[in-house]
């Protein structure tokens, strides 16, 4: 580590940005002996995956209003005129909450790199479908999706015939990549999964909704190949780290927490960290780049790794973060003996299910409900994260979805909303790009599920920095730096 001026060192790599990918790169290089300067133009960690206190959220919204670039737009904060909001730092609102399947490659890397020890993982509990009221006297309701065989047997929500259909599908998915099953779905590989479910399993709308909800597909049109992969991963993740849950969520703000832990591992390995320092200008020579930072420092590096912040081809999404004054207890009940109390629940509002005055939703709306166990809000409150595809009225759709959901959770005492943060996020580019000494990692994913594909770009960047013949088997495999003492009796 250079304790002198940062301008005196010829850095092996300057990493700009502390989003998930750049932070994982820092983690992967933390034992490489490379000279690493890790900067971020923001004064917080996590980039597009950051978690904000209410105060930070406010300055973020203010800043977006003045600078018209990047992936975020149309951000606004609404505080209804009700009491109950706690102090700003009691909240940690995630900009891009993602669920992580227990069998995700990300978790394997966090375990093999030992970084997982500093992250508190929480269980994601039930997935629910929102049901519009049937008659004028009726209330909307939530139906829990059965997602294991035991669940399917015991549920009373679906008919015996539907149960048989669902069981047949679950058996198929568990084995979907075997040669004999592949013949069945390959012709549908690039077609929507709903079409395959219809053609091959003759599923009714309800069952199709169950399956699509498990994929968290934002437009509901996920391809058969991608969809089967996700449902398979969901089913095989169930029970992997304990009974009753298939996915996890890091406490205190999700991916943001992983970024911070990865950056800390980078620092412990000797990397120098500077927040509030972006790249003002650069000059490229044959084998080094000179960067002028917004902090005024001038630094030289052999390689620059950034995150691509340009807008990609795929559609944008609308997001609404709402703090409500209720623990929403019924959403977070564990359904299996010995299961950890879940802190996250998922509710899907299928297309057309929004029946309050106004247009119905044409795309699904997904809601992640987070209990105070996530550390994102004080006791007695919850945070709801709503996402849907951007349409001319998606903001209004999200706001009506929130109202409908709250009245479905507790019709007797409809929880009140204390705070709302709305914004739209454009999709980034999906490929990394190497141009001389500059490597741009892809933009942040809009997916509501951690997408392992993005991890490959980090691994490629690691290879580029480490250089020479590197062994993939050594990637992210570290021993604990300190003796581990899980046991209080020595």
């Amino acid at each position: 580590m250079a304790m002198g001026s940062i301008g005196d060192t010829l850095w092996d790599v300057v990493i700009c940005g502390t989003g998930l990918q750049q932070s994982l790169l820092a983690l992967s290089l933390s034992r490489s002996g490379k000279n690493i300067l890790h900067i971020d133009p923001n004064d917080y960690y996590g980039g597009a995956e950051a978690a904000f206190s209410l105060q930070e959220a406010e300055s973020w919204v203010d800043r977006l209003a003045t600078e018209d670039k990047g992936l975020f737009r149309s951000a606004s904060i609404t505080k209804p005129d009700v009491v109950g909001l706690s102090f700003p730092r009691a909240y940690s609102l995630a900009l891009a909450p993602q669920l992580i399947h227990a069998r995700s490659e990300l978790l394997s890397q966090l375990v093999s790199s030992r970084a997982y020890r500093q992250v508190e993982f929480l269980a994601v509990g039930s997935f629910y479908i929102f049901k519009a009221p049937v008659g004028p006297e009726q209330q909307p309701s939530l139906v829990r999706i059965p997602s294991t065989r035991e669940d399917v047997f015991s549920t009373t929500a679906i008919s015996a015939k539907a149960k048989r259909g669902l069981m047949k599908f679950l058996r198929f998915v568990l084995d979907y990549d075997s040669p004999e099953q592949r013949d069945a779905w390959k012709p549908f590989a690039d077609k929507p999964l709903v079409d395959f479910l219809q053609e091959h399993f003759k599923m009714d709308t309800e069952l199709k909704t169950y399956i699509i909800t498990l994929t968290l597909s934002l437009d509901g049109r996920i391809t058969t190949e991608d969809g089967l992969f996700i449902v398979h991963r969901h089913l095989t993740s169930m029970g992997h780290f304990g009974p009753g849950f298939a996915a996890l969520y890091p406490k205190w703000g999700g991916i943001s927490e992983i970024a911070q832990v990865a950056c800390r591992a980078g620092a412990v390995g000797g990397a120098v960290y500077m927040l509030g320092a972006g790249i003002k200008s650069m000059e490229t020579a044959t084998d080094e780049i000179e960067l002028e930072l917004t902090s005024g420092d001038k630094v030289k590096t052999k390689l620059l790794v950034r995150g691509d912040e340009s807008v990609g081809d795929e559609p944008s999404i609308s997001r609404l973060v709402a703090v409500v004054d209720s623990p929403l207890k019924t959403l977070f009940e564990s359904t299996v003996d010995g299961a950890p109390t879940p802190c996250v629940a998922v509710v899907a509002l299928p297309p057309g299910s929004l029946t309050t005055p106004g247009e119905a939703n044409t795309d699904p709306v997904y809601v992640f409900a987070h209990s105070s166990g996530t550390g994102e809000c004080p006791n007695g409150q919850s945070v709801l994260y709503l996402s849907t595809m951007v349409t001319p009225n998606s903001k209004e759709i999200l706001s009506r979805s929130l109202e409908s959901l709250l009245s479905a959770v507790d019709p007797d005492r409809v929880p009140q909303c204390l705070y709302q943060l709305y914004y739209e996020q454009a999709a980034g580019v999906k490929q990394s790009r190497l141009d001389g000494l500059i490597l741009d990692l892809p933009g942040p994913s809009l997916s509501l599920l951690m997408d392992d594909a993005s991890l490959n770009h980090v691994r490629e960047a690691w290879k580029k920095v480490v250089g020479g013949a590197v062994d993939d088997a050594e990637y992210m495999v570290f021993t604990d730096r300190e003796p581990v003492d899980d046991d209080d009796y020595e």
Partner: protein
Amino acid sequence: MADTNAPKPSSSVKLVLLGEAAVGKSSLVLRFVNNDFQENKEPTIGAAFLTQKCNLPTRTIKFEIWDTAGQERFASLAPMYYRNAQAALVVYDLTKPTSLIKAKHWVAELQRQASPGIVIALVGNKLDLTSDSAGSAEASGGGDDNAEDSGDARKISTDEAKAYAEEEGLLFFETSAKTGHNVTEVFTAIANAIPETSLKSARGPGASHAGVSRTEEQRVNLNGPRDLDAKEGCAC
């Protein structure tokens, strides 16, 4: 380090280190944890955290001591560093006035970022460089070699720092990581100052009626069921 007495309730306490570079933060920890001291120690890299137990008459406190890993240099410590810290050691070098100014900044930062109930100890290190000590003129850690010839390099009076500490409600000690003077006392004082009610994740005897935090049953263990069984077996 086997404790042959009947096991007492044991709790983990996260303690964060703060202070200007080269004031002797890591040296204090090294003295506390290993009863060791290294002259001209290199700036700290490679240590994420160290643990050390502190035995009190009625309970055992297990300190989990988080080092800054050099991230104090550009004030780039992440929220996860401060979060849930129940104690902080803010260190200055009592031969270096700027280091107390810096320490005051860190106290303000803790008051802004950390949990409201955090126990903060202000520690003036390198007491061995002053005439109060038995007179060694070598630096007491942190790699600062600017020892003065007079035998008293003190630039910050005890009264000044103490008055500030009292004003802010901080514990206050002057230490020498080099001689070990007052080092254990700092940690014992912190351990005593941590309110019983804020102790979480208590395990072992007493844990069952100490109201184990709900976080324990929510947390998922990525070590897998094997380790989980071992832990349960141990706590029986």
